[in-house]
Structures are given as C-alpha cells and as structure tokens.
C-alpha cells in the first residue's frame, strides 16, 4: 500500500518504518489489490466455521469515527474488527464534541491519546484522512472522504465481481448515475481500470464530471450504452448533495424516466450492482433490485470479509507485526 501523501507543511521526518494507510485506490498497486482479495477469500472460509472469531488482532484497538451517517460501512467495519478480536470503539459526529465545535484536528488528537492501531474515518471532506494521519500514530482507513474516495467499497466490489465472474480483466462495467457526487464511482473507476476492466460512465451531462475521461474511462449520456456491459453498476441519486437551484437534472421524475435502470433496459444475464442505500423506484427499479441477477446482497457480505482483510493487512504486515503465537491460515 502506498505511503501517506505527505502534506507540504509537514516538515517532520517520516516515521520509520512508515505506517501504512488505506486512503485511496490510487495508492495501491495491482499486486496490493490481488493480495487483499486473496486474504479476503481466505478469511471468508473462516466465516463458515461454527466459531467465527479469530484471535489475530487481540489487544489491538480499532476506532471508527463517522462524521457522516452510515449503516453498512460502519457496521461492517465494527464487525470485521470484532471477528478479528480487536477492541472497537465507534464515535459519531452527532452527539460528540464535534457538536460543540471541536475541530477535526483536536478530535483526532483526543482519540490518538488512546493509542489506537487503526482509525477508520468517514468525513465529508477530502484530505481529512491525511490530516488525522498527521496528528496521530494510527493507521488510517478511509471509509469515505467527501466525494473523493471510498476504497473499501471498491475492493468489496472487485471481490464480488471476482467471485461472480472468476476474473475482472476484460470485463465491461457500466457505472450509471450521479458520478459527480460519488466517491464510490471514483474509487471503482480507479480499481476497475487498475485490474484491466473497461469502464463506461452513463448519466446526465451535468452529473458526469468534465475531464473524468482522464481516469481511463469512457462517458456516454444515453442509457442505451449500458446494453453492452457485463455489469451495470447503479449509483445512488444523492439528493442530499444536490444544491438547491443547481439544476443538475430538471426533476427526479425525468431522471428516472431517462436513466433509471429497469428490466426493459437490461439484457438477460447482465449483473447489477449498487453500493446502497438504494432509492427504489428512482435510480433502480425494484424488480431489478430483487432479481436473481442483482449482486447487491453479495456486495454486503463481501464488505465484511474485505474489511477484515484490510485490517489484517495493515496490522500484520506493517510496522508492528503481530506475534506469531496464533498461526493464521492466510496464504
């Protein structure tokens, strides 16, 4: 995994050996991704056992800090840490000192005083993970920073695709909807392109960011463009990010009519993915969401093992290697 992007005003020497973080898919090599997916596959087998808890991260502390609401990401990180026997704490911005105006820096310093091994952070702004990395000693896992990245979502999506198709290279993925506001889209474009998939973005002109082709994808405005894809990845219409009067689309009704993913617009056998939460009847027809070709529930299950793999990877091959008292069945 790549090193932290050191900020310009950080003149402290880097800690040696450097801590590792998971902030952006852009920091990973193809080998990193393949190693993480392999670890996840091994861990998935452990979940079939009656005793699901592994002692691997006993005594480690994982703090989940969520400045934005979340169900599946926060719950799966918490369960992933618990399944690996780490201690966990979860902090939500509402009801915490953030409500009293405490800055991210001060909150991070406060939590850093507990010597966490990992801080899982979701924040409305890009750069928040780097800021927390600068003022704490923890490994940082980005669970969503503004509209920038959500790397564990992309990894679990790769895992889902790999399990379904047996490969990622050469597949064609159409990502449909509000790309402009989507960290899921940005992480997935990078991840899919890294592993050799073809990516086509489909959506209304104002929601496909100008210049995004430079990431290695194609862009189309007609919904018909999803027809050629192996996988149709449906993004949520993020109405909470829509500024009033911005007029990205005239109405949700018109959006659904033009870009909603319906059974009529899909070929038999095309797989459908969605990061959740879904707006049924807006970006995705309920019949599509519940059809056998939808991989949405598989994605959630993949989220658990992929997040276990990320925690395991950061803490067992990083600067503070775990003592080998309990052998772990990982390749």
């Amino acid at each position, binding site marked *: 995994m790549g090193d932290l*992007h050191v*900020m*310009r*005003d950080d*003149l402290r020497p880097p800690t040696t050996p450097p801590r590792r973080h998971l902030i952006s898919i852009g920091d990973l090599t193809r080998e990193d991704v393949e190693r993480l997916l392999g670890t996840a596959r091994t861990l998935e087998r452990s979940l079939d056992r009656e005793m699901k808890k592994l002692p691997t991260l006993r005594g480690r502390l994982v703090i989940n800090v969520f400045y934005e609401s979340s169900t599946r990401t926060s719950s799966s990180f918490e369960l992933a840490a618990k399944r690996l026997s780490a201690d966990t704490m979860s902090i939500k911005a509402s009801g915490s000192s953030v409500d009293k105006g405490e*800055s*991210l*820096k001060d909150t991070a310093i406060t939590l850093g005083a507990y010597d966490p091994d990992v801080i899982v952070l979701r*924040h*409305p*702004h*890009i*750069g*928040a993970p*780097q*800021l927390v990395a600068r003022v704490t000693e923890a490994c940082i896992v980005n669970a969503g*920073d*503004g*509209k*920038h*990245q959500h790397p564990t979502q992309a990894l679990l999506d790769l895992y889902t695709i790999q399990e379904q198709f047996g490969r990622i290279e050469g597949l064609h993925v159409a990502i449909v909807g509000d790309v402009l*506001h*989507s*960290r899921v889209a*940005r992480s997935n474009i990078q991840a899919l392109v890294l592993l050799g998939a073809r990516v086509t973005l489909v959506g209304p002109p104002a929601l496909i*960011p*100008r*210049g*995004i082709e*430079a*990431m290695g994808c194609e862009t189309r405005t007609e919904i018909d463009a999803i027809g050629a894809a192996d996988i149709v990845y449906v993004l949520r219409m993020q109405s909470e990010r829509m*500024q009033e009067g*911005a007029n990205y689309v005239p109405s949700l009704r018109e959006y659904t009519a033009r870009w909603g993913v319906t059974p009529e617009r899909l070929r038999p056998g095309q797989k459908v993915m969605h990061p959740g939460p879904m707006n049924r009847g807006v970006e995705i027809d309920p019949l599509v969401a519940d059809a056998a070709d939808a991989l949405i529930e598989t994605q959630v299950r993949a989220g658990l093992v992929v997040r276990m793999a990320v925690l395991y990877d950061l803490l067992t091959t990083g600067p503070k290697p775990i003592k080998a008292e309990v052998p772990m069945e990982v390749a």
Partner: protein
Amino acid sequence: MLFVKDAPKENLVIRGARVLDPVESIDHLVDVRIDDGVIAELGSNLPVNGHRVLDGSGLVLAPAFVDPHVHLRTPGREDEETIATGTAAAAAGGYCAILAMPNTEPVVDSAAVLGALIEQAHTQAEVQVGFLAAISKGQQGGELTEMGELADEGAVGFTDDGHPVVATSLMWRALQYASITDRPLAVHCEDPTLSRGGHMHEGTVSAELGIGGWPSIAESVMVERDLALATYESRTLHLMHLSAKASVDALRRAHSEGVRATAEATPHHLVLTDEAVRSLDPNVKMNPPLGTGEDRQALIEGLREGTISCVATDHAPHARHEKEVPFEAAPFGVTGLETSFAALYTHLVEPGLLSLETLLERMSAGPARAYGLDVPKIAVGSPANVVLLDTQASWQVAEDGFRSRSKNSWLLGEKLRGRVRATIAAGRLVHES
C-alpha cells in the same frame, strides 16, 4: 494617496551595484548616492560624504516594487495581519508601496473607517500604503459608497474585492460615478452562480479528486461583461488576479479595440497549476483557483507582452487554525509579499520564460501606472524607492523567516533563488538581510 510612518530619511551611498531600471533604461554598474531620502547622484566612485555605505557588488539595484493587491486584515482581524506587520513583510519582499483591500471588518466604505486607517499608517507603516475603498456599502452589492468623499479622504481607488460586483447595473453606475473621482475601479471578476460550490479549477484534477469544480468561465464571462461596460462608458478599469486564458484573450481583444483596461496576475497563478491541488494542501487554495498549464502559459505570455501589466501578490493572511482543516473546509487565500520576487525569478526568469527587466517593470512601474501613482525610478531628484537584489542567493522558505503575522504560504519548504538584500522605501532603509 500613499501614507507612511513619519521617520528620519536616510543618507546612503550604494556602491558597485548593477543599476537596472527598465523605465529609465539604465543597465550599468554605477554608484548611487541618497541624500536625506532623495536620489542625489549617480556616478563612478562617488565620495562617501559621511554617508553610510551599502556594498552592492554582485547585486542588482532596481526600482522598489509596488504591490497593487494586499490584504492587511485591519481593522477586524489584527490576529492575522496589522499595518505594522504587513508593511514589514512588504519591506522584506522589496516593496516600497502596497495597496490594501477594503474587505475588512468593518468594510472600508466610509471616510471615518478610511481616516482611522490613514492615521494608523502614519505611525505604523514601514513602507508606503494606499487604501482602496469599497464600491458598494458593506460590499453588499446594493448601494454605491460615497466615492467623492472617500476620494477626498485619500482612497486610491475602489473595489469590492473578495466579492464580485454581481449586479450589472451596479457595475455600470459605479463606472459612471467613479469618473468624478478620477480613481480607478478594480474588479474581482467572478460570477458566483457559476463558482458556487467550487473549491478548485473544474477539470481533470477536480474530476478525479471529487472536489467541487470552479469553471474558468466564472471569471472570463465577468471579464467580458466588465470590459463591455468599460467600453460603453469609455472608462478605464483594473482587472484583478486574472487566472484564465479566456480572460487574457478577452483583454487582449479589448486593448486592440482601444479599451484602456489594466490587469494583474499573481505569482501563484504564474507558477502553479491545478495539479498542485493533488497535495490537498490548503495553502494552494485560492480565489480564483489555480488553472491549467494552458491558463498559466497564457498568463505568462500576457505578462511578457504587457497585456497584463502588473504582478500582484493578493497577499491574504489566514490564521493557522483556519488553514489546518481539510482542503474544502479551508478559506481561500495565501500570503505572498515576502516571496514574490524569488518565486518569479526562480520559476520565470531562470527558465527563460521572462526577462529580469520585464519582471522588474511588472512589479514596480506597471502597478504604479495602473493606479496613477508616482513610478519608482532611479533618477536624480526622485525619492529613494529602491531594492537591492541578490540573484545568486538560494534560500529555503520557512515559517520562522516571515515577518507577516500569518504563515499560509504556498512556498513553505521550497528552495528559491533570488533574495532581497535591502529595501529603501520613501527614503528609509526598511529592510536588510
């Protein structure tokens, strides 16, 4: 219109420097004698006459710089900058005069607020400082300020900088009314309905980072509008901190049609591009945002040919805690007074993109002319406004070297070539290093 601390003037002899004055067309090794703050003689082996001697050998002696765009944060945010610290920073940067923007708390929109600032300048200003007053009351974009009284009190010009003049009708009336004062209007060109939600240039980098994009047309459509108004009224106009190629093209077209508009560009727009934002450093967040490489090339070309006649730092101090936040939460603006010459010497002159003579002209005579101020020059009888530059010296930009009260420089940690060795402003030696 310029105000400075009342203090005794200098008697100096500057020996052996390469005197380089693009206005006076001087470029040779010559001694300069300053008697009581006035340039008294140029010649070889001038007698000392008991004056203090500055050794200029190996150095360039040039007209001191004029910064047409500085935020002194006074009144209201003296924790970020004061007239004393801001003008000390200017002295360290080689400036003999700076112009302060009126977007303070309260806004400089009345003779009372302006008068209080002028009074402070008389006791605190290390270099000459001029004050722009607001175009609209409270910079709210509604009613015109009392420009007549503000001009009488000493305003150098008028601007709502920090904010655009949104209503076209207000900009039109401002152009008409400002004509009675003969002081220029300076405009911050931004269509806020286009820039809303933007934190960086809209392009490939913003698309990848997911940072709200600020399209370059937010600037250029307002440049076009204001040039159209200036043409219609046959008035002059000063365009602040241009950042987009389309804006430079529009200004060049207007010049060819006879419009007498001036413009400025900042060192950060002349050196950096939106690629710098990948660092997520809040010290590369500014308004207008950094453009593409193509925009940067257009600004350099505009500066070289004179379409853009001024370098302006847009020195914008911010408290540390305000910038120690994620990029999108940070305020716009960076400091620049103490690094402008070195930044442009290193990134434009050394690579051969701009001559030293042109840079010196755009940092001194260009801004002075845009605001109708006396042009600093190295000529007998002129007040001593000169800077002694070491173009060989390298140095590293560090927080503890700044005289500004704020440290939000986009150059922290950078190694630069070109150092200000001495600044003489209004006849006083205000900086030596």
